């Protein structure tokens, strides 16, 4: 089992749940600890219930884990909902003036803070939060110095009196806990490494900047809006043109316009906005103008549950827009990969002049993870494909934008180059861009143009490696996941190994090209296969079957809006190996 420590902070939206989360994340990452932050919340600006889990440890931490060690309820509701999550050895720090504890499990330490005695609550409305942070760090064996410096940074835009007041309060909470509460038996360790605390949306935005995106536009939509926020904040430093547009139809068409002018253009949305973009995705393919679209999946259909995660958009991506056309679809495996994937998919989209889709989800988009800053490479390999940016003596007007080639890729003249004027078109067209859809149609030319575009599929396939089996080939069970479940499945495999069950894992990052033959070859050799996904109908299982005829032995699916926790997978695998069922739908124990 991984050594880890998890803090759960809950309250109403607007009560300041986020700030303690940020402070803990900074302190832990600077201590050289890995961390993962997941915020369960609702579509409300003030009120409701928000529950933030921050889990840390010296080894890799990829998910929220299975247990809360320290609960900090900022209101009665949180206490009532979540005290039951604590097991022996856990603790709960709360404001004794306003919150009544329920009955905890045996061995749980209740840590009441007499807030009105410790602070002037008429002046400082969030005194309880700061006191609790101080107390928590004392109990976890973190020196006060670390907290003082982070608080000073946190409030750096405020006047000195505010900084002093908060540092003072934290000190009071810290000392009170030292004297009155029992510290956790194992103080949080320290390592020499320093991690960056990266959010998925920021990672994709930064990945775009690294890939050379010069034009980014979006319409706000949870959970993708963070990409827009990072872009807007950093646009002038990164020299990126960032626009908020009237709707997602406008967004993708604007991106296509910019891409045609010759720059890399990107946009992000969620399932509903993506639905509006569908028609233009076909324009990108037909006119052969590369763009990258990010879809941060949330629980659908329709408005669905805007603040909850799901992997329910796969078939929308596979079927987006009408007609046959080459496309690329990839799902990042973790928050670090949200960064790394963007330059990769841009290179493929550019080389093959087709749309690239990044299939992210709320779990990654709004989650935060400790990453080695070295992976944030702002000088990645950039391949813009075959582009004509100067006449080079060829500007005699004979240029054919859609020249039929063996690879299906036709060199792309950037508008403005003398002697290369041409028309790009959503209508079917001849090699020179002349329409073969209106005044005349031509079956031979139509067929040649379809085949030209579709030939790109082979090149796309060759540009991506097939997935590899993680873990031993002779494992008792093989767990298949895609995208954001990489970390939680990996941890579940470790927990299974502790119980004597050896599990391997096949995690899919590239959905198109899938390399179905390679996947089927791997899975056919496996003893027992289980496909794990965050949706109702087994979208990936159905896709895999349609591409390869492969049918897995069992399925683990979750569609309650919350992500998998490791024990969900462990228990489901065990029941399936016993032969009790072939479809497990774990129940989420944390109600937010």
């Amino acid at each position, binding site marked *: 089992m991984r050594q880890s420590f998890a803090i759960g902070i809950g309250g109403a939206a607007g009560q300041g749940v986020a700030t303690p989360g940020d402070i803990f994340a900074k302190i832990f*990452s600077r201590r050289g600890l890995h961390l993962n932050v997941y915020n369960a919340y609702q579509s409300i600006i003030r009120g409701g219930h928000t529950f933030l889990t921050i889990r840390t440890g010296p080894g890799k931490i990829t998910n929220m884990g299975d247990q809360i060690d320290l609960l900090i309820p900022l209101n009665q509701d949180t206490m009532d909902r979540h005290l039951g999550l604590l097991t022996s050895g856990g603790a709960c720090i709360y404001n004794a003036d306003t919150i009544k504890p329920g009955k905890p499990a045996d061995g749980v330490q209740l840590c009441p803070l007499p807030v009105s005695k410790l602070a002037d609550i008429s002046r400082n409305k969030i005194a309880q939060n700061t006191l609790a942070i101080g107390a928590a760090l004392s109990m976890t064996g973190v020196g006060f110095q670390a907290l003082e410096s982070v608080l000073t940074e946190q409030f750096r835009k405020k006047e000195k009196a505010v900084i002093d007041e908060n540092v003072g309060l934290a000190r009071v909470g810290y000392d009170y806990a030292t004297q009155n509460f029992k510290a956790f038996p194992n103080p949080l360790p320290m390592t020499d490494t*320093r991690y*960056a*605390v990266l959010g998925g949306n*920021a990672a994709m935005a*930064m990945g775009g900047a690294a890939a*050379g*995106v*010069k*034009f980014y*536009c979006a319409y706000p939509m949870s959970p993708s809006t963070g990409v827009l926020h990072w872009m807007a904040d950093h646009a*002038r*430093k*990164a*020299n*990126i*043109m960032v626009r908020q*547009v*009237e*709707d997602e*139809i*406008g*967004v993708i*068409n*604007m991106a*296509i*316009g*910019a*891409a*045609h*002018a010759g*720059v*890399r*253009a990107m946009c992000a949305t969620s399932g509903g906005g993506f639905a509006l973009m569908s028609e*233009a995705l076909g*324009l990108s393919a037909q*006119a052969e103008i590369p763009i990258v679209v990010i879809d941060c999946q949330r629980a659908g259909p329709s408005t669905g549950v805007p603040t909850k995660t799901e992997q329910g958009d796969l078939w929308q991506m596979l079927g987006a827009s009408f007609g046959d056309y080459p496309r690329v679809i990839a799902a990042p495996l973790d928050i670090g990969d949200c960064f790394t994937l963007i330059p990769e998919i841009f290179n493929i989209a550019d080389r093959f002049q087709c749309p690239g889709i990044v299939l992210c989800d709320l779990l990654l988009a709004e989650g935060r993870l400790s990453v080695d*800053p070295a992976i*944030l490479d*702002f*000088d990645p390999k950039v391949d813009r494909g075959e582009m004509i940016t100067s006449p080079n003596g060829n500007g005699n007007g004979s240029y054919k934008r859609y020249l039929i080639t063996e690879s299906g890729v036709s060199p792309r003249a*950037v*508008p*403005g*180059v*003398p*002697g*290369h*004027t041409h*028309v*790009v*078109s*959503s*209508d079917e067209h001849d090699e*020179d*861009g*002349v*329409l073969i859809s*209106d*005044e005349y149609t031509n079956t031979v030319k139509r067929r040649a143009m379809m085949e030209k575009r579709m030939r790109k599929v082979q090149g796309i396939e060759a540009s991506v490696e097939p997935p590899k089996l993680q873990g031993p080939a002779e494992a008792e069970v093989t767990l298949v996941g895609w995208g954001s479940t990489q970390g939680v499945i990996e941890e579940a495999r470790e927990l299974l190994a502790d119980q004597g069950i050896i599990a391997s894992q096949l995690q899919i990052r590239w959905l198109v090209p899938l390399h179905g033959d390679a996947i089927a070859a791997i899975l056919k050799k496996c003893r027992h296969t289980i496909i794990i996904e965050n949706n109702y109908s087994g979208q990936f299982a159905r896709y895999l079957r349609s591409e390869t005829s492969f049918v897995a032995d069992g399925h683990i699916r979750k569609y309650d809006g919350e992500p998998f926790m490791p024990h969900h997978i462990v228990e489901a695998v065990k029941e399936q190996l016993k032969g009790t069922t072939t479809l497990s739908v774990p129940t989420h124990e944390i109600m937010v």
Partner: protein
Amino acid sequence: MATEIAAPKLTTMADLKGKVDPDWCPGCGDFGVLAAVQKALVELQIPNHEVATISGIGCSSNFPGYINTYGMHTLHGRSLAVATGFKMANHGMTVLVTGGDGDGFGIGGNHFMHTMRRNVDLLYIVMDNQIYGLTTGQTSPTSRKGMKTKSMPFGNVEGPINPISLALSAGATFIARGFSAEQKHLTELIKQGIQHKGFSFIDVFSPCVTYNHDNTFQWFRPRVKKLEDNPEYDSTNWMAAMEKSLLWGDEIPIGKFFERTDVPTLHESEPVLATEPLVKQSSRIPADVARAFVEELM
């Protein structure tokens, strides 16, 4: 030996001829618009490779195929969104957007409104025939009330929109109306529209000779009156323009309704575009900037 510098090649009508001839019905108003655009580009001596002609879908949206520039034939209603992205990525180019009333005011109505308020520096020419032609004759957003079409065989019960007053209220900075049969006048308006810094909108009466039997060349001819013929008309006066825009019936004004030159264009408002067009800028993040981005996360 001294290097001879070749005189820049003059832009001629032949340079602007598209690869194919228009497939419009004989007598279609769009022929006049095409000719006027080509003449305007020749008179302004803009080389064809510095022009992007971007359209949506419909009869008039086939326009980019008939003029030799960098053409984009996009989706129904989306030309202005595509053109905005294009202009932002390369504001060095002259951007013309062409289409019909259904494309621009119906399916593309939302982009029309927002492109105007953004003051994107482009010329938007709507070939307004008050009917859907390519789909064989249905009611359009500018079809008159009572007009019988295939989709409203008992007469249009909805009123038409007024593109000129709409453009005035949405903040367009150059607003004009032309008539396809008034070649010289239309060419002049197009020249002004191209030269105007900001969003230029020209609504052109471009009669559909096949499906619109109400608003024909014959119907328009006696009615159109040029604003330029009235020496007292002040096209910098927004209120006066609004008043004129409401005229419809025996007298229908054509010409420049309104122009203001004090509003910065979208690309002028963007510090990122201050140095040179986006497409010419480096796409690498300088190492020190990249380091600062990462440092924020530490």
